[in-house]
């Protein structure tokens, strides 16, 4: 997902540079505005329609099914692996530090003091899942690991001057 975001951005930025280059390299000659304004307004209309279609398509693709886990569901009845997590300045407390692959893990995340960010990183330091730890709330993050290994929990919400030291560990084992 992250590399998709990166390449989409890179390709779009390069295309935009192309558009600006085209216009700028065509800026020195002088032509009556009315001789082309109608035509380019026409292009604008089509561009607008394209953006609207893209808008609707992206919404449908990315919102159905809704990409966040239900917060009202009672996960403990389903036999999922449940870990209670709480963030503190500046460490993580987890009810267990071991889970198995291919079975959903429900992280029930809260905080003992300020806002923190619960970010799960794999061995290659890729961010695989995250949720905020918010005072007064327990946020349920559901994730199914597919690769075993030593995962790290990094804090992703600024929480004071040792924020960067807030690193926990999670062992993911073969089932």
């Amino acid at each position, binding site marked *: *997902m992250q590399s998709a975001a990166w390449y989409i951005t890179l390709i779009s930025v390069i295309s935009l540079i192309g558009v600006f280059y085209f216009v700028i390299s065509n800026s020195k000659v002088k032509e009556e505005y009315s001789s082309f304004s109608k035509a*380019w307004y026409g292009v604008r209309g089509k561009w607008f329609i394209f953006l609207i279609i893209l808008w609707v398509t992206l*919404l449908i693709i990315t919102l159905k099914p809704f990409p*966040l886990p239900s917060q009202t569901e009672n996960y403990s009845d389903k036999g999922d692996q449940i870990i209670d997590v709480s963030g503190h300045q500046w460490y993580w407390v987890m009810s267990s530090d071991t889970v198995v692959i291919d079975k959903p893990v429900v992280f029930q995340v809260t905080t003992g003091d300020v806002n923190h960010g619960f970010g799960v990183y794999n061995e290659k330091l*890729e961010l695989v899942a*995250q949720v905020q730890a918010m005072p*007064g709330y327990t946020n349920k993050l559901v994730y199914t690991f597919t690769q075993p290994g030593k995962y790290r929990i*990094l804090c992703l919400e600024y929480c004071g001057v040792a924020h960067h030291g807030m690193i926990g560990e999670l062992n993911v084992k073969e089932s």
Partner: protein
Amino acid sequence: MSKATVDKIHYSDAENRGALIAVKAHLITGFLVFLLMMLGGAVMRAAQGALMPSVGADLFYQIMTVHGVGVVGTSAIASTGILWYFLRQYVQLSTKIFWLNFFIFLTGVVIILGSIFLGGYAGAWTFLYPLPGISLGVWSTGAAAGFLIGLLLIGTGFLILYLDWGRAILSRYGSFGQALGLPQLFGKEPLNPYHPTTVVVGTMVLIVDFLGIAAGAVALVIMLINLYNPEFKPDALLVKNLIYFFGHVIINAAMYASVSAVYELLPQYTGRPYKTSKVFYAAWFAIVFMVMAVYPHHLYMDFPLPKWIMIVGQVLSYGSGIPLMVVTGYGALMLVYRSGIQWNTSAKLLILSMFGWAAGGIPAVLDSMITFNKVLHNTLWVPGHFHFYLLLGLLPMILGFTLYLFNIPQEKEPPLVEKLGFYSYAGGALLLSLVFLNSGSNGIPRRWAVHLDEWIPYAQLGAVAAVLVVFGFLLFTVRVLIVLPKAAEPVPAAVH
């Protein structure tokens, strides 16, 4: 009055001189503070790249706090300078109140600087409840209160200024709807293509900033009460909503305020008018609402937030890019195409700003989709997109406007300093933004004083880019300090 001309407000020469001095003060302040903030940014990147071991975590997070709040505040004050300069040509504005806001702003800045560098406050500009009150002894309650009070004061100054704008717009146009061109949009009145774009912009900024600051003030007051009376515990999610609504509106409104420079100046450089139309009114009317409704994309990772708010956030975050991509950016390119434009540095910067705004919107829209946000939120992807916006969108507008005020004849070849400044700044800013984005896509978290070994090369490349930005901006700042104070009021070029 002929239909083809806008009747402008008449001021005495003394009034115009006074106004120009006030605008220059806003801009010069802006340049000096931006330069300092960029230096702070470069220091932070260097510290993350292990190039500056002398910057410990305490100092890093203090710099980070001042960098965040300083850039937003300076963007607001400098962009207000631009919009005020143009808006006073169409409605009767008070220079005294303009100065009043400026001095209240400076007072607030002094208090905030004291809270950070004397009191050790390092709770980030976001001051997320309850962090300012719970520092584990790093800073005192007084330091946190100083920061919040400083912000509250700055907000109050802006509210006073906006009251003056509101009074002026109402007395000239009768209602905000008229000023926004709504009767023309909905066919109740014939279309007037010479309705000033700046009045539309000014009205939009006034409405959204007023509400944004009001929300911010509520959050600040709630948190101040909590600091001294911890029994009073507000809902953390509610406060977070208020803070992000406030912050998001303020920085976005700074962009929209500055775009008045593009609308006013590009026609002068190309000799082509930027006429208002139904599409233009519709775009700006939509933006009034969208700017206020897109902030939830900061809160997707707070799962308990109602689902419908998140969906609205995602739908409108994308939507808010459309008016720009279809009206402002596209319109600017049409003005330039085959216009025979003389490329002075001001014109170059204004076109650069259109590129930066549009291009910076792409990673922003991606981040505003929950599917992407799940793995990009609070990584360096986020600073990536707003540095793109601010360094390549907002600042080039401010720079472009300032260079316009230099009042140098258009046909004159720009001096080498400007060319060098332009390429160092633009190249550095593009590299810096892309390094941030690429770091984010590699999972590097934001707001980490110390980086893991694997991340250090990214920070080092980022530091190099930051040096280029600082160097380019320094050249511009020196030139501004030399030329701007003495520059006479520019006489607008004819537009047909």
